[in-house]
């Protein structure tokens, strides 16, 4: 029989809630000082003119009025909405597909998992620099591959067409200038977002491995096809994981910043890849309009909260917890 440790003796003298509070107090202090207080102060400053040097001047709703009339605000809002609307579902689909593939007995499964997770460990600046070269119009890997594959197909088609009618001919494909052509800046950022689905894949994999085999066996006995098993067994069973990833995804895509800021500062031509957080940063640290930037920040936070609330609302119908629906 061993003696009880000293900590337990201490907890007998102090009420349990106090001990608990003491243990989490470092986090509470940190959260209050570095997150809660800045949020509250930003709330106040969003009603002020503040340049970081002179004392803030209260201006009431002026920042909100400026925001409503600011065409750039609407532009970045639209860009970010489009990005979120495409990147989030695309990322979810790709991550889910990869997770389902990795959950099967593919050769080298462990290696594949590591490879897919690896990009999430790469620093954002390094990611941006690598992709700058990947998207390079002349020497970029994407265009080299794209040009080679597409033009190879076109050459084959031309050979076939030549057999039918010698005058028929399909022109060569010119891969896009991804980062300098206004039509391609947004798609390039969306494509890049898929690069870091590794985290979501890990969560989906954990969810998939938790699905009871008996459900699949029962479905097979009932004659369910692979698609029916996926739709009626797998997806409902991992819906909590999907919901978690979607909520996290909403928060992340709405705050997309570092990679486009490095790759296409200012959002490129026609500002088609100028995102909300980039504009917020520019207003604060380039234009020194911290008050207006705080307004932008609060609006962004409210949008994210609203979208998350919608996701929670939808989850009541779409997410199935073990033994409980919604």
């Amino acid at each position, binding site marked *: 029989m061993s003696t009880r440790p000293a900590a337990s003796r201490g907890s007998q003298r102090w009420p349990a809630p106090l001990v608990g509070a003491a243990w989490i107090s470092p986090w509470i202090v940190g959260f209050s000082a570095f997150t809660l207080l800045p949020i509250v102060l930003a709330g106040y400053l969003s009603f002020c003119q503040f340049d970081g040097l002179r004392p803030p*001047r209260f201006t009431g709703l002026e920042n909100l009025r400026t925001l409503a009339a600011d065409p750039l605000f609407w532009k970045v809002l639209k860009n970010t909405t489009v990005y979120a609307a495409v990147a989030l579902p695309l990322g979810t689909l790709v991550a889910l597909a990869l997770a389902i593939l990795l959950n099967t007995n593919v050769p080298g499964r462990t290696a594949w998992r590591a490879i897919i997770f690896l990009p999430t460990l790469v620093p954002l600046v390094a990611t941006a620099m690598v992709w700058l070269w990947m998207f390079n119009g002349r020497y970029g890997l994407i265009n080299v591959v794209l040009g080679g594959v597409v033009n190879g197909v076109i050459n084959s088609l031309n050979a076939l067409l030549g057999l039918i009618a010698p005058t028929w001919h399909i022109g060569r494909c010119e891969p896009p200038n991804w980062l300098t052509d206004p039509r391609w800046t947004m798609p390039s950022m969306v494509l890049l977002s898929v690069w870091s689905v590794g985290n979501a894949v890990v969560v989906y994999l954990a969810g998939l491995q938790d699905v009871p085999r008996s459900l699949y066996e029962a479905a097979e006995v009932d004659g369910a096809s692979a698609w029916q098993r996926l739709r009626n067994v797998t997806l409902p069973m991992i819906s909590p994981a999907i919901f978690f990833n979607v909520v996290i995804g909403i928060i992340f895509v709405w705050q997309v910043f570092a990679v486009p800021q490095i790759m296409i500062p200012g959002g490129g031509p026609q500002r088609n890849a100028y995102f909300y957080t980039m504009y917020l940063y520019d207003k604060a640290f380039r234009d020194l309009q911290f008050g207006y930037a705080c307004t932008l920040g609060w609006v962004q936070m409210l949008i994210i909260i609203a979208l998350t609330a919608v996701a929670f609302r939808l989850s009541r119908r779409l997410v199935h917890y073990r033994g409980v629906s919604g």
Partner: protein
Amino acid sequence: MPDLKRMLKLALAAVLLLPALALVAFGPRTSRPVPPDRVVVTYWEKWTDFEGEAMKRLCALFNETAGAAQGIYVDYVVTTQIDLKTLVATSGGDAPDLAGLWPQNISSFAAKNALQPLDERAAAAGIDGTRILPVYYEQCRYHERLYAVPLTPWSLALYYNRGLLRQYAAELSAAGYSADAPPRTLDELLGYCRVLQRRGPDGAYQMLGFIPSVPEMVGWYWNTWGLWAGGTFTDPETGLARVDTPEFIRGYEWVRDFLRTFGQRDVLRFESSLANFNSPDNPFMRGKLAMMQQGPWFANMIRQYGPEIDYGVAPFPTADGREISYCGQDVLVIPTGARHPDQAWAFIAWLYTSPPVVVPSGLAEPQFGYEYCLVAGEHGPERRPMPPLRPIEWICWNHYKNGPLREPSAAFLDTHPNPGVAIHERLARGPLARTDPPLPNWFALLAEFMAAYRDIWAGAPDVRGRLEECQRRMDVLVDVARREQIRYGDRYP
């Protein structure tokens, strides 16, 4: 067992604690112990590499001479994102004593009371408009007060590869141009470019005479095209930013015409094939570009990465052939709240008023710019001892830049490592030397302007319409800035 557990815990704690204690006891110390009884002037500067080394050496010389006599020690601290960090430090009440900012920061910081006015100190030391070139001196002022002192100024010019032009001498001659003289007008520049181009087997450009967006994508000096066409950034009557003037429209239509002449898609593809500016693969060094819009520091890059290149420096081509230049500088400021403004000023004053000095490199081998310089001789460059220079000229010399003084010394000009220094000096003295305007929100306006340029560079056909749209957006930003300044009892511009 419990004892073993406790011992393990203690061992783990020791393993974690001991390195920390060792670090405190034996960890790195400052490499330059400050002599006793000195006031330490904290000097934040953006420069690294050879530029930073030169400034460090100059600070060391001050610390050993005038600084020792006056009880001052200048501590050179390399600071990235210097404008933002100076702003945050000043806001937090912990400003450096000296900061090396960009000129566009002056009006922005001064409008927010973040800089100390230097008029009285400058007048007492004779560091004023009588000594400093007007284009640089005026850029250091905001609302009739002096807030900064020029450190290393520059003026933009055309750097051209003379050897490459001579290779195309016959074609240039057939087109009515000379391989021995660079273009003087924008039309001529386009004409030279028509000749100086080479495509590869795949039809992609391998060489172009010039490209407006280099160095780096979109370019450093995308904002100058209105100036080359004879415009100014501001309306002379109101002082407000104006980019929809006929001159600006003409300048940016030239950029559009350039793209149309050489094919926008092909030019952009060529642009994306060009390597980093600050590397041996710089397109000028590689013979991919025959001409570049550049500042005097480019001479140093050629010396490093392409010493064999036969190059020349000329005023940048303009619409009507008049000599126009875009000028800028690195400046020194004393932020509000600096603890040692008198000592910081003593260092600035020494830069300008000290007798000529020779700055030792501190290395065993004689170093270029420190112990020796090169001057043209009968059989090529000859090595000579470095002549004594005033500190302000010495730092400009070592950065390959022109100087800020109205009357540069003969030694500065005669031994200068940049063969184009006379051109840069002349351009800075010219009546059409332009700078960014002293507007507190210039960076915001510039961002709007840059967006317009990006669109033009991406193929927007209606240059006039795009610049007019840009002007409307700039006017809104001006209204916001004016309201802000009025709220604090100030005026705009």
